């Protein structure tokens, strides 16, 4: 496997908040086009790991490479890096004063300096991709939570990310709205997007993941294909966690 096949490389990552160690010596490689699902109880460090990938959290130790470039090196252009790393959060955080289309256009205009026409065309394409072409002119307050989250996904996709990070993207949604968002994520995976997904949706993990990572207490406890982790977990803590979920 060549260097260029590795999209994200996390090497011996550690992170502490004051005295509390949240991540301890975590190493993960994510290949181009791979979908990695990260599972684990709350407080296991999953979200922190995800946030380290686009430096929303600053690692205390270790190295992270994106497409072969070390982002943890001093003097990294953080804004440049973030252009290639899309992220979707549990809270959708759309700009409440802007329509769905304008939400998707804003960062394209300000950060990528695209022209008004290009930004609008791409915004409409991305909204269509998440199934919301007919909601382009709606304000966030007029959309359901699931629709808002899909706009947030379109907003991230419009920046042409090379990798997408999902931080519990469906956890804040009513159960009946979860499916629409998961469908969008599934179609992204099928289109070959590299994805790192923190979720509690076991069905999604089983069907869509190429690889499943189970974390607890800031370390990777187990990893493997979905069938290895779900059907034949080797570690007792993984078994325990999966037992509780079912």
């Amino acid at each position, binding site marked *: 496997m060549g260097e260029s096949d590795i999209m994200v490389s996390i090497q011996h990552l550690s992170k502490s908040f004051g005295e509390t160690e949240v991540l301890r010596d975590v190493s993960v490689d994510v290949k181009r086009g791979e979908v990695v699902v990260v599972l684990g109880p709350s407080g296991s460090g999953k979200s922190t790991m995800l946030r380290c990938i686009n430096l929303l959290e600053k690692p205390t130790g270790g190295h992270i490479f994106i497409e072969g470039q070390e982002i943890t090196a001093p003097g990294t252009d953080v*804004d440049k890096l973030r252009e290639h790393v899309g992220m979707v959060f549990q*809270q959708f*955080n759309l700009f409440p004063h802007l329509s769905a289309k304008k939400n998707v256009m804003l960062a394209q205009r300000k950060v990528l300096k695209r022209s008004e026409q290009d930004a609008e065309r791409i915004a409409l394409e991305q909204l269509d991709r998440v199934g919301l072409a007919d909601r382009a002119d709606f304000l966030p307050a007029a959309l359901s939570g699931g629709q808002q989250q899909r706009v947030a996904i379109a907003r991230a996709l419009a920046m042409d990310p090379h990798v997408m990070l999902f931080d519990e993207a469906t956890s804040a949604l009513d159960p009946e709205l979860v499916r629409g968002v998961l469908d969008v994520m599934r179609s992204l995976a099928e289109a070959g997007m590299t994805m790192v997904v923190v979720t509690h949706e076991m069905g999604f993990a089983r069907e869509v993941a190429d690889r499943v990572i189970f974390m607890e207490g800031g370390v990777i406890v187990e990893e493997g294909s979905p069938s290895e982790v779900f059907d034949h977990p080797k570690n007792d803590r993984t078994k325990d966690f999966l037992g509780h979920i079912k």
Partner: protein
Amino acid sequence: MNRPPSMIRRIIGYVFAVVFIIAGWWITALLVNSPALPTPAATVGVLAQNAPTLVPYFWTSAYRVIVSLVIGTALAVPIAHIFARSRTLDALFAPVLYLLYPIPKVVLLPILLVLLGLADAPKIALISLTVFFQVLVAVRDSVKIVPESAVLSIRSLGGSRWDEYLHVVIPATMPAVFTSLRIGVGTAIAVLFIAEAMAGSTGLGYFIMQSWSMVNYPRMFAGIIALALLGVVLYAIFDVIERRLTRWRS
């Protein structure tokens, strides 16, 4: 959307309110039966009659309140943002704010009169100070409750610190600015009245108290109505601006 019906409903609401207030005033005036409280009908005549003398007093008062609201807000908003964003400064100044906020600023009037004279300056200083604290506290608190996740979102899109303010923090705190201003108008007018009544020979506060000492109750009442109108108009202006700027909240 359903703008027309809600607009009509609002107008009906205001018409009802005006009728209700005038009816209440009329009944009270008849019951009290004192020259100090004329009926609405008598007041209209008195207002018309006193309008020429009243108008310059009205503009003096309006000028003072508006300038004070602008100064107070212009100072409070940036400071509120700085406090809310800097943990060190906030830790340092929060206790100061906590101790100063509840002090009725109007008690400082005598000091300001000694320092700044009897004209506009002490009144503007006093009202600005009152408005400053109200806006400062409201905006600082509203900046603090902007969810961290909203800021992370725009950062993850490659937005700069400036984008963060322009597109997330400032829109989120806009309602607090206007709510504190609307509440502030009432206090500002009250402080204005006291300041003008106590010192100088200009403004509606002076006009009202002068009429009172001359036992010219209709004239006094015309002044009171003018001061009330000033408050209502300013309140309504802020309300309209707020609606315009925060239309997305509906």
